[in-house]
């Protein structure tokens, strides 16, 4: 098996069969967009985790002031709401993680089609996605 230049490919699904140069150009654009999406999901997951941790620690500092003043067992409802919020945050992150894993595997399978145009689309999309998304990682 080796890389070939061809205008015909069947990509991932039975209905995604390409026969013409226009269809190939469109497929390369779709694959490029998928690669950009993959890189931005990686950055987005890290940013989401950072925001979730920051937003979780701010109410916790306010909680310590309240429990000093109230002597009755009023600290149980605020603790459960923060844990519930953390559960929702973490569930959202898990969904994003599944999306990242699936898109990563799709890109691997697209490269496995051994079509050189698709391979260029994946590489270019990864480069553009990294270039656009990673500066946002250091921006706070």
């Amino acid at each position: 098996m080796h890389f070939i230049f061809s205008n015909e490919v069947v990509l991932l699904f039975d209905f995604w069969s390409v026969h013409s140069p226009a269809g190939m150009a469109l497929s390369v654009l779709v694959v490029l967009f998928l690669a950009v999406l993959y890189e931005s999901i990686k950055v987005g997951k890290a940013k989401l985790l950072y925001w979730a941790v920051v937003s979780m620690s701010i109410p916790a500092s306010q909680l310590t002031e309240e429990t000093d003043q109230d002597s009755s067992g009023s600290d149980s409802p605020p603790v459960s709401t923060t844990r519930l919020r953390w559960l929702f945050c973490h569930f959202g992150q898990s969904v994003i993680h599944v999306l990242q894993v699936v898109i990563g595997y799709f890109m691997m399978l697209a490269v496995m089609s051994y079509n050189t145009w698709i391979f260029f689309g994946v590489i270019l999309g990864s480069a553009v996605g990294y270039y656009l998304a990673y500066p946002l990682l250091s921006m706070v």
Partner: protein
Amino acid sequence: MAYNSTTVPSHHHPTTSASHSHGEGMHNMMMHMTFYFGFKNVELLFSGLVINTAGEMAGAFVAVFLLAMFYEGLKIARESLLRKSQVSIRYNSMPVPGPNGTILMETHKTVGQQMLSFPHLLQTVLHIIQVVISYFLMLIFMTYNGYLCIAVAAGAGTGYFLFSWKKAVVVDITEHCH
């Protein structure tokens, strides 16, 4: 090489019979190139591991699900092991001649592992296991079987949810209380 029930021209290899000529009984060159749902005659990673019934497919689904979960857990475990082994910071101070004839103490701080230490060897072994499992998961996804691909994705998501929860809580506590 493209196996399809529809008449899609297999432009990669003009003859499919030539691929059967070498390697008698190695493996049938019936590689799917698109996603499909089925459980008949599904080869999984090793010769002899063939799925033929729905019950075997269910068992394979559970096994792949657990493998993907274990992979996510292994990633988190390696991270926490690395953090724990890097807590030990070595200071060594050495006298250094300063200006005007005084002697200053220059302190070197090294964070990390020595090469022959047990934590580093353990990290290396775990790294090899992680690489092998990640390649296995890639090869499982490459079978293009819909059930097995869903098992990989669901196992990865569940493993991330279960193991990274603990990691995130630990990160939260260490960032908050210091």
